């Protein structure tokens, strides 16, 4: 009962959460006025586009995250067998880390790790 059950679990969640959403979009009282659906900006009509100007920081971190995420994924199986395999696993992971550490070091030196 693992895979299918998970999926069923998911469906139940979707149905119940959706039910609550539909209920509350139908039942409660409503009113309408022109200002209501406009975006909120401290009570002042919004000026210009709702669009963040380009900001390097955000996506650079996202990229770094992705890279390290891959690493984490590969570490998990290794971690499981580390205890049983011992030395060989340790050495391999040291190599792995060494290479990635280089990357981190590079990023550090390039100031990619600080926010612009």
């Amino acid at each position, binding site marked *: 009962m693992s895979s299918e059950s998970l999926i069923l679990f998911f469906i139940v969640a979707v149905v119940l959460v959706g039910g609550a959403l539909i209920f509350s979009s139908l*039942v*409660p*009282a*409503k*009113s309408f*006025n*022109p*200002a*209501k659906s*406009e975006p*909120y900006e*401290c*009570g*002042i*009509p919004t000026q210009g586009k709702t669009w963040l100007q380009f900001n390097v920081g955000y996506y650079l971190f996202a990229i770094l995250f992705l890279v390290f995420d891959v690493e984490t994924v590969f570490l998990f199986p290794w971690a499981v067998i580390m205890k049983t395999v011992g030395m060989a696993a340790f050495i391999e992971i040291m190599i792995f880390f060494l290479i990635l550490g280089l990357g981190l070091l590079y990023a550090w030196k390039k100031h990619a790790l600080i926010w612009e």
Partner: protein
Amino acid sequence: MKYEDFNDNETLELFKQTGGNLFFTTVDAIVNWGRSNSVWPLTFATACCGIEMMAAGASRHDFARFGIEVYRASPRQADVIVVAGTIVNKMAPVLKRLYDQMPEPKYVIAMGACAISGGPFYYNSYHVIKGVENVIPVDVYIPGCPPRPEALLYGVMQLQRKIQTETMRNPRKQPDVFADTDNK
């Protein structure tokens, strides 16, 4: 607090009649219980009264006992707008807009002389709104300059009483007087 201990019960009775509690049901009772015990205020304060509102939220008086401590900065999630302070001509459209952007059911508490009538700025002032009910409909008036925190709590209890006279689908009968606002 007992019913008799409150003032202005006459108006409350009036609400009970006009507020449509003809179809007052258990569901309504539950919903009103929920609504009246969870009035989240909008973070909105313009002047001195705001300080007393802050004091009401602080440890000594502790707004939170009523379940009202959740000050929401966004009108989308607020239930009550406590107009704490003077509203001037330039601010009125902003206030109106904030009020408009709140979801139903929404309530307004006019806190302090300024919000009720312009208070100290009623005469001779060229830029002060003479009472917020010219801008948005008000549910409860709390006089004082500034009202003590307890007075605010009392006002909130009055509001709770008012909420309990409402029906679920039709929380507010908006009187026509309030319909047109001339931002004055």
